[in-house]
């Protein structure tokens, strides 16, 4: 099924972001949800270590703890909203998207490796495409624009290497 017009869906996305600014005093995010759930998981296994670790400790110290983190609830909403949207538009399909000639195993391996790399980058940059590029971008944050430029620059450097995987 065909997707919606990119400009129209972009404006809709911008209005969602504007609503987040207006009603929550903050923007959107995604990597923070992973950081919060990782912190909660580590705390469940080794509570003392997690509390003393400066990265996990930050999420554990927030009111309500890591499992009531704003971004984690928002991401749960993202999953439900995306599922509903895909189902209603006839696009829900169990599959592994990959280029022709790429095995499922190879695609899963690159997905895992890419995800892991992004996790480290987002931790260092204090956010991802949502929390930095979109949220900070629209608020004209210098750090967010720096992140956006360097992320896409690196993406274009790496892309030719993976070109064959997608064609």
């Amino acid at each position, binding site marked *: 099924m065909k*997707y*919606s017009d*990119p*400009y129209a*869906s*972009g*404006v809709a*996305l*911008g209005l*969602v972001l*504007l609503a*987040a600014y*207006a009603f929550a005093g903050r923007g959107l995010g995604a*990597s923070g949800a992973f*950081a919060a759930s*990782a912190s909660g998981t580590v705390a469940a296994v080794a509570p003392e270590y997690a509390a003393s670790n400066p*990265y996990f400790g930050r999420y554990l110290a927030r009111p309500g703890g890591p499992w009531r983190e704003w971004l984690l*609830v*928002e991401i749960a*909403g*993202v*999953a*439900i*909203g*995306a599922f509903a949207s895909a189902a209603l538009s006839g696009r829900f399909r169990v599959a*592994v*998207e990959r280029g022709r000639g790429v095995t*499922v195993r190879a695609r899963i391996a690159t*997905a895992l*490796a*890419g*995800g*892991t*790399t*992004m*996790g480290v*980058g*987002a931790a*260092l*940059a204090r956010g*991802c*495409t949502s929390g*930095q590029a*979109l949220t900070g971008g*629209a*608020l*004209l*944050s*210098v*750090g*967010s624009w*720096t*992140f*956006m430029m*360097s*992320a896409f620059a690196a993406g*274009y450097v*790496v*892309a030719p290497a993976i070109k064959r995987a*997608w064609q």
Partner: protein
Amino acid sequence: MNDLLTALVIGLAFGAALEQAGLGSAKKLTGQFLLKDLTVFKVMFSAIVTAMLGVFWLSRLGWIDIATIAVPETYLRPQLVGGLVFGAGFALAGLCPGTSCVAAASGRGDGLAVAAGLFIGVLAAGFTFPAWLAFYDSDARGAWTLPSLLHLPYGLVAFAVVLLALGGFAMAERLESRA
């Protein structure tokens, strides 16, 4: 609690908007890096321009107080380096953190794998965090914005971003018609 309800509702709309745009598909996202399908750029900049102008005009009309919105703080060098690492992973994965959740929720196994990778990545970052904590907190510039960097009025910078986006859209259409 009310706070978390807001988070859930905003998340629902966020997820639906990304899915409708086609950003739950790794094939579509890698098209951006291969310059074949520039949906990512079009969606991102339509969103940025909409939210930016919305904040600008709503605060001018006195409907919202811009001071209550948290501007992501700048840590210049860590964000530059973090961006490079993130971008390399993004191209490899074909999905970013938010869109990996959209892909997974639309049934895509590669989306689930990217999300699992992200979880491993932040775990690894957390375990090794003490080693790079000093760098993480370095080059702190506070809530630094492009208008204060350029010493230009906010409205003028916003106008420049609109022009940049419109120019980018025209270029994107040209590139796509050639691809």
